[in-house]
């Protein structure tokens, strides 16, 4: 899926934002990620490492309201 920057507006208007459309988009994205990094004959650690790094970032974001109070603590 190659979309030029100038064509972005017209491309977005063709996307379906219904639940089925979003689900299909997620499935396509996951399938293309797997096809590129995981279902490869000689895959490396990159595929799984990116997933784990993304999971760490997601957990950090989820906990941010709690973690930001650590900055102002005098004693940890």
């Amino acid at each position, binding site marked *: 899926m190659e979309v030029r920057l100038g064509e972005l507006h017209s491309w977005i208007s063709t996307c379906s934002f219904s639940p089925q459309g979003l689900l299909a988009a997620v499935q396509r994205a996951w399938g293309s990620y*797997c096809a590129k990094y*995981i*279902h*490869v*004959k*000689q*895959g490396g650690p990159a*595929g*799984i490492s990116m*997933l*784990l790094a993304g*999971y*760490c970032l*997601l*957990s*950090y*974001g*989820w*906990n941010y*309201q*709690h*973690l930001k*109070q*650590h900055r102002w*603590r005098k004693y*940890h």
Partner: protein
Amino acid sequence: MNLSFFDQFSSPSLLGIPLILISMTFPALLLPSMDNRWITNRLSTLQLWFINLVTKQLMSPLYKKGHKWALIQTSLMFFLLLINLLGLLPYTFTPTTQLSINLALAFPLWLATLLTGLRNQPSASLWHLLPEGTPTPRIPALILIETTSLLIRPQALRVRLSANLTAGHLLIQLISTATMPLSTTMPAVSLLSLLLLFLLTILQEAEAIIQAYVFVLLLSLYLQENI
């Protein structure tokens, strides 16, 4: 709001959605399903090899009737293994530190082994309550003790899992809290505590694997008694 060392074990939620849902479903993403290709990828080959190894280890002591439990035991093993190992990454949440999750895993499976035994061979299941060679006056007390030990098995399973993981995480947090200020005041001591932290992390990695294995192994032993 109290910020204490136990805050890492409270279930985090954002806009009312708890992280625990993602923490428990994320391991499924790490186990890729088979693609419609002839040649498998490295990840699937490694995982299949490991799954075969674990299944053979768990199922070899069981009779043939127990092999019906192979799927649930292997999937439980990998579920616990991945959840425990993922909890060692920074900022992540470990669902198995919660006693509630462990009870939900331990109690139904233990009850299933117990009911299987009581249904298929009720007298043999009751014989297990009395060890061989017991002197006659001690029989009533021993039956009570063995019944208690039978009924306490799910509690033991859950507390063992949560306590081991919680203790490891807490130790890591405590020692890292000590290492950080020491690095500015007494660098030599902080190097020692850094070494300790490194060793603890290795221990906790091993602990994560071992606890998953012990949980499933004990369940398979309870199954073997009853099947």
